[in-house]
């Protein structure tokens, strides 16, 4: 059961208006080819859940520049003035989330949890409009889980079943996003025969991956 799919076909499954989680951190560990193909196919009105939007015209920044993004949930947009401009102009609806809360909200979506109880953001603008709960005399924000229609993931190595391994800081949000979307499309630096990734080095298990695309053409 190989999961390898032609990139055009894999990305064609994503409709306009879809909610996408996209792995990566300032463009490191981002699914470069999948992003390029989304832009090439002219997808629009996307909701993107990602740590950041990289730099102008780079990685997720390409989707911003292409005007493909309607809504963004991210922790940091400081290094991409185009995102900030579109936000101020009202072209993109941006929800800024503390990075640790973002990671935990995605995790909650993937782990079947009802939400995240966190001290981060209590008493700040981040808390506005949110439930709080007291546990053992301390107040926590209730942050809701995040899920997506698709997760676009970047891995170092995959096997044909879709088991994935990651490398150093290119790991970041990829493993957790692979658990929090209805359909997972992974891009891998290399695809190796089944059995070549030692079980202890499988960080995303094959059963959650739907489609696999090689990084090089």
């Amino acid at each position, binding site marked *: 059961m190989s999961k390898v799919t032609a990139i055009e076909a894999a990305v064609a499954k994503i409709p306009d208006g879809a909610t996408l989680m996209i792995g990566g*951190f*300032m*463009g*490191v*560990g981002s699914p470069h080819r999948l992003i390029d193909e989304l832009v090439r196919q002219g997808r629009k009105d996307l909701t993107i859940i990602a*740590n*950041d939007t*990289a*730099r102008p015209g780079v990685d997720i920044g390409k989707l911003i520049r292409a005007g493909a993004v309607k809504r963004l949930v*991210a*922790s*940091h*947009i*400081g*290094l991409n003035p185009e995102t*900030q401009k579109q*936000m*101020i102009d009202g072209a993109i609806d941006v929800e*800024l989330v*503390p*990075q*640790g*809360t973002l*990671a*935990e909200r995605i*995790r909650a979506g993937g782990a079947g949890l009802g939400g995240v109880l*966190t*001290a*981060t*953001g*209590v*008493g*700040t*603008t*981040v808390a506005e409009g949110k439930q709080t709960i007291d546990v053992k005399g301390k107040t926590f924000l209730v942050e809701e889980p995040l899920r997506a229609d698709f997760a676009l993931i970047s891995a*170092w190595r995959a096997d044909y079943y879709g088991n994935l391994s*990651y*490398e*150093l*800081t*290119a*790991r*970041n*949000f*990829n*493993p*957790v996003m692979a658990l929090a979307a209805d359909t997972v499309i992974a891009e891998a630096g290399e695809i190796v025969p089944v059995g070549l990734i030692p079980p202890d080095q499988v*960080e995303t298990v094959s059963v959650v991956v739907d489609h696999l695309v090689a990084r090089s053409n």
Partner: protein
Amino acid sequence: MDEKTIIAKRVAQELRNGNLVNLGIGLPTLVTKYLPVGIQVFFQSENGVIGMQPLPEPGVAADALTDAGGTPTSIIPGAGAFDSVTSFCLIRGGHLDVTVLGGLQVDEAGQLANWMVPGKMVPGMGGAMDLVSGAKRVIVAMTHTAKGAPKILKKCNLPLTSVRRVDLVVTELAVIQPTEEGLVLLEVADGVTVEQVVAATEARLIVPNTVPTMQLAA
């Protein structure tokens, strides 16, 4: 010695052997240059590594190993890599000994504002809120004033990063410790008087009878 060097050198003295430390981008990263001899510190980068160190030489950068700003870095032997969930588990779970961050404002309650200026700068908080809420020790490393205006105020008027009281504020003029009673002036920089610090500070400072001078290596 310029302002930034004074601040970085003084902050470096706060790090202890074996500490897990996170340095914010900008001024705080200078701290790595002035670690006391014999002190081994583990630097965390919130994008997923402990044991970060500067690139030893040009030309050995790898795409998959960068700091939180996306700049190539390297690691010490004994480093560990992990995903964003684990990274913030370390930050928020009380495993991070020290975080050093820049600041826009600190107030008499010891609260920090450092992540946005409404209508002007909306970069997003990144990991700042998690770091200030979760680290065992929060050190703010910043210039004492901005274009002549005090940054240490009675009350922050920019959005707070956290309601948590920070542990130490280090500027080019002074070392200040926020306490339940208020801001205590711990040290003044070489050549700076208590009166100069008070004049450059909007917040009320608690001034002990003797205020020692910051001791910095040359």
